[in-house]
């Protein structure tokens, strides 16, 4: 049927156009959010740096403590994983790459005969692992694109608890590190047990400070109060990095989607124009064929009409004219 294909193409172009509007809007939103997320990540850096330097000073001051968060299990039987993904998709490979890394890690530990315990942060990782019948011990979501310090504290508390109760002997943190706008990479970091204070000091800025600190109430008490804050600050930093990465990935994915939609629209428009031309040609052929059959080959109005049509008149105007001549 002439015109059918054209109508179908027109509808497809319409739908792609509205998709393009959506992806363009998401791209713009992600672009503004990624800037905000980067600012937050930068604003949070002084605290993390200072808390590390305080630990450094403590180490220099000779605080020797047997804090439970520093407990090195002689034999690691159960490994906990904190997996930080987004709540929503449409962010390119952002969620899948974290999930894939996490699953590989879990598999590696299971094949060594260890148990695992999952703490899924973000809806995407939770639904992935739930669907595959992994046992999920904690799942938290609803804040992946804009995490607050309270969220970090909640997660840190939950995980520390299971570490302190010896449910797990080691905790790995898997998240996406924000390197720059163009580069984000999935990293696996040891979260608990905290490496001993000297290690932490080496991780830090390493500025030489004198070791003659006065402590109140005592180095041990300070460290005891400090370590939980340190875990929270680390987790908060990871959440902020993950959020910035999520927005950056989404912006990139949506830009690609918008470009792709544009390309598709161009291609389909061409196909549609061709289909319209074909339909017009077919209609003309029908008219000419019909007129010739009726008029017995005489030169009639139809030939004149056809001539004017070929000169550019719309084909649909000619249908009644052709009918009239018959």
């Amino acid at each position, binding site marked *: 049927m002439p015109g059918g294909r054209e109508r179908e193409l027109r509808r497809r172009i319409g739908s792609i156009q509205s998709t393009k509007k959506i992806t363009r809007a998401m791209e713009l939103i992600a672009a503004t959010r990624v800037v905000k997320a980067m600012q*937050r990540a930068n*604003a*949070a850096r*002084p*605290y*993390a740096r*200072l*808390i590390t*330097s*305080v630990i450094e*000073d*403590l180490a220099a*001051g000779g605080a020797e403590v047997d804090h439970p968060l520093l407990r090195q299990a002689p034999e690691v039987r159960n490994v906990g994983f904190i997996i930080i993904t987004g709540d929503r998709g449409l962010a390119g490979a952002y969620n899948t790459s974290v999930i894939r890394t996490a699953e590989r890690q879990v598999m590696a530990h299971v094949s060594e005969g260890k148990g695992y315990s999952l703490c899924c942060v973000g809806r995407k990782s939770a639904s992935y692992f739930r669907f595959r019948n992994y046992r999920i011990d904690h799942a938290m979501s609803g804040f992946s694109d804009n995490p607050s*310090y309270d969220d*970090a*504290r909640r997660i840190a508390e939950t995980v520390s608890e299971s570490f302190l109760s010896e449910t797990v002997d080691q905790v790995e943190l898997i998240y996406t590190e924000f390197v720059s706008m163009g580069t984000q990479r999935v990293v696996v970091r040891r979260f608990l047990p905290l490496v001993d204070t000297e290690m932490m000091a080496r991780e830090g800025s390493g500025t030489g*400070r*004198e070791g*003659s*600190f*006065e*402590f*109140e*109430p005592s*180095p041990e*008490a*300070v460290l005891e*109060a*400090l370590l939980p*804050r340190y875990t*929270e*600050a680390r987790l*908060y930093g990871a959440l902020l990095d993950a959020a910035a990465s999520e927005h950056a990935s989404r912006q990139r994915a949506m830009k690609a989607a918008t470009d792709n939609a544009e390309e598709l629209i161009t291609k389909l428009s061409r196909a549609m124009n061709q289909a319209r031309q074909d339909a017009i040609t077919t209609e003309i052929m029908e008219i000419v064929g019909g007129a010739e059959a009726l008029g017995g080959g005489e030169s009639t109005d139809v030939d004149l009409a056809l001539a004017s049509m070929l000169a550019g008149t719309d084909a649909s105007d000619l249908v009644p004219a052709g009918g009239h001549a018959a």
Partner: protein
Amino acid sequence: MAVELDVELVSPEEVTYSGSAEMVIVRTVEEGDIAFQAGHVPFLGVLAPWSVDVLRPGGERDTFAVHRGFVEVSHNKVTILSDVSEPAGEIDVARAEAARQRASEALSADADDAGAAAALERAELRLRVAAA
């Protein structure tokens, strides 16, 4: 002129305050108030939920309600690390009053309610700092 201290109040989210001061007064968990002036020996302490006073060189005084945190002093630099700190000017007195009311009611109903006791302490600190 005396050497001044650099003061920074840092929360996990951001640096909330930075400036210079002649003296900084804080309260640590056990041993009461302690004041720092330039040239103080390096010091590390756990803060009690209490006010932090920053005495500015011009004679002004900035007061903050700090609910928990640490203070580190070294090289004439005072750093206060705290999850929750509020400048006196930003405290909502009406809200703090309401919170105090609620907490003391909860506490009179159940004297062992640790959450209410902490809330009461917080609200009283806010009111005290706001009034100062």
